[in-house]
């Protein structure tokens, strides 16, 4: 038996956690299960791919950086795409969700997000076809670590970037004014409004951050696996499992939940087989809902 599945699970789990942060924030602040989140991940990856190609064609610094498979264009494109994906989420809110929110029931927003999710995904399929694609065709040699575990430089880089983003998110939510306002709205929107918190600004920030982190998760998924229109949608069940396992609204919870889901999935692939990979997140989700619906760090059921 090899312990390789631990490393793979950790990398996959980190990306799941990164995606789940945006999901758990929109869930707790806007109070609905947003099915478009997975498709924001796919859009982020395709936007980055397009921008990286454009930048790579315009400036001559396209060579891969050190042992990594990609060059500066992917990093620069990724940064711009994070902003664009945030704006895309904001536009979606302006066109659809904000209007439904004014009318009341959250469950209508879930249907709307389900419809918007399918439309967004199919639009990607129309624009880029369903053929998988890659940021780079460079072949990477995995570096042996201890106990027969091997990782590629891209995987290590993704792990490092995820840790950086999660740390930044934690600081933002605990130390900045807008972060405290976000937590206040998630606790009690009516009370937050009374003490003078600009709820509209909080909602805008939530969408921007959620979209940007979804894009980052998409880029890392594209770097370590592949880019497909369904990449984000297929990640949706692990994302929900991670967010609920960690406790809705908890950022550290989402990350830990993501790591648990990622490790469980790769353990499942190792011991059961790859065919039922997607069902593992579902079983975890059922288990959490049966045993502890509030999740590890949550307060509201």
């Amino acid at each position, binding site marked *: 038996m090899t312990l390789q599945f631990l490393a793979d699970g950790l990398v996959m789990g980190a990306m799941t956690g990164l995606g789940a942060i945006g999901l758990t924030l929109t869930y707790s602040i806007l109070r609905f299960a947003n099915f478009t989140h997975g498709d924001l991940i796919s859009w982020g990856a395709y936007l980055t791919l397009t921008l990286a190609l454009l930048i790579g064609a315009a400036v001559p610094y396209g060579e891969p950086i050190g042992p990594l498979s990609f060059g500066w264009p992917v990093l620069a494109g990724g940064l711009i795409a994070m902003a664009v994906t945030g704006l895309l989420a904001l536009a979606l809110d302006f066109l659809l969700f904000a209007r439904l929110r004014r009318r009341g029931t959250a469950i209508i927003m879930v249907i709307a997000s389900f419809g918007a999710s*399918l439309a967004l995904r199919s639009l990607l399929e129309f624009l880029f076809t369903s053929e998988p694609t890659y940021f780079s065709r460079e072949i990477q040699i995995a570096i042996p670590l201890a106990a027969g575990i091997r990782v590629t430089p891209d995987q290590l880089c993704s792990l490092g970037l995820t840790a950086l983003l999660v740390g930044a998110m934690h600081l933002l939510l605990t130390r900045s004014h807008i972060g405290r306002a976000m937590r206040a709205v998630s606790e009690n929107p009516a009370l937050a409004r009374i003490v003078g918190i600009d709820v509209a600004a909080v909602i805008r920030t939530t969408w921007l951050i959620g979209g940007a982190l979804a894009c980052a998760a998409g880029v890392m998924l594209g770097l370590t696996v592949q880019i497909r229109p369904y990449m984000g949608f297929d990640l949706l069940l692990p994302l929900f499992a991670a967010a609920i396992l960690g406790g809705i609204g908890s950022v550290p919870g989402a990350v830990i939940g993501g790591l648990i889901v990622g490790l469980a999935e790769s353990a499942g692939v190792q011991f059961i087989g790859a065919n039922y990979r997607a069902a593992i997140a579902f079983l975890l989700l059922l288990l959490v809902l049966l045993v502890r619906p509030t999740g590890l760090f949550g307060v509201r059921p």
Partner: protein
Amino acid sequence: MMVDLLGYGAFFLVTALSYAIICLGLNIQWGQTGLFNVGVAGFVAVGAYASALLTTPATAGRFGGFELPIAIGWFGAMIAAAICAGIVGAVTLRLRADYLAITTFGIAVAIQLVALNAQGFTGGPFGIGFIPRPFAELAETPIAFSLANLALVGGVTLLTFFALERLARSPWGRVLRAIREDETAAASLGKNANLYRLQAFMLGGAVMGLAGAVQAHFIGFIAPDNYVPALTFQVWAMLIVGGAGNNRGAILGAVVVWGLWSLTGFAMSVVFPPAQQARAAALQIVAIGVVLAVILLLRPRGILGEKKTVSRHIEAADISA
């Protein structure tokens, strides 16, 4: 020419009405009770596979093949889908509403995985063929075959419709709507909200399973690709367009949306060259998604909307008064 048109019309209506039955199932769950099911495709698939396993001839290397009569297959489909709904409901109905959405989404993914991978039960990616078709002895004259099937599927749709209308007017149906509108008030009258929800969810699941079986037997072949999230989405679009909470609306929405779907599909096949057909199909889904969003924004009641439903005794009293 006339005969061709009649044949196509019958074929179209059989398909549209089989969707209408799914829609009626979703209407019990969402329209009457306010339960959000994002896994419609999964329950339809369970019904289709259950009936296929019960009625097909025995096949080497696959479970099932009992060659039972079609009616027993359809009944089995309803039981299997209801059990499936019961399991999901028991876990999630006591939690907040959108946990049900996430769980039903998950069960649909899991069911599709089983259909795809459990070769010994489901035939894997190749699906199950040779599902007995009603009136197969008429297959030599396609027009008679189509019309006979239309009569059968139309009959099943009508039967389901009248049964559900009767239920909606019964005390049981009124409790469902009471729970949907004000759970606390219903609970204060001694109604166990979760138990009623579970019953409505299982009944809706059973109707979806029946529809899956009807479709499977009309086409004679099923494969995991038939039961993707796009199916769930189409059914939701049908119910929202027709008018959630209204059984007539569920049927009307199914026919209208399936008509639009077929028309745009035909237009795409004319406009786009064969190599681009897959991309064009994606565009068709985008269009339906946009239509659903626009209707939710502009006319959330749908075409017909929900009518006030009261006990038939009160109605009779009103007329005689």
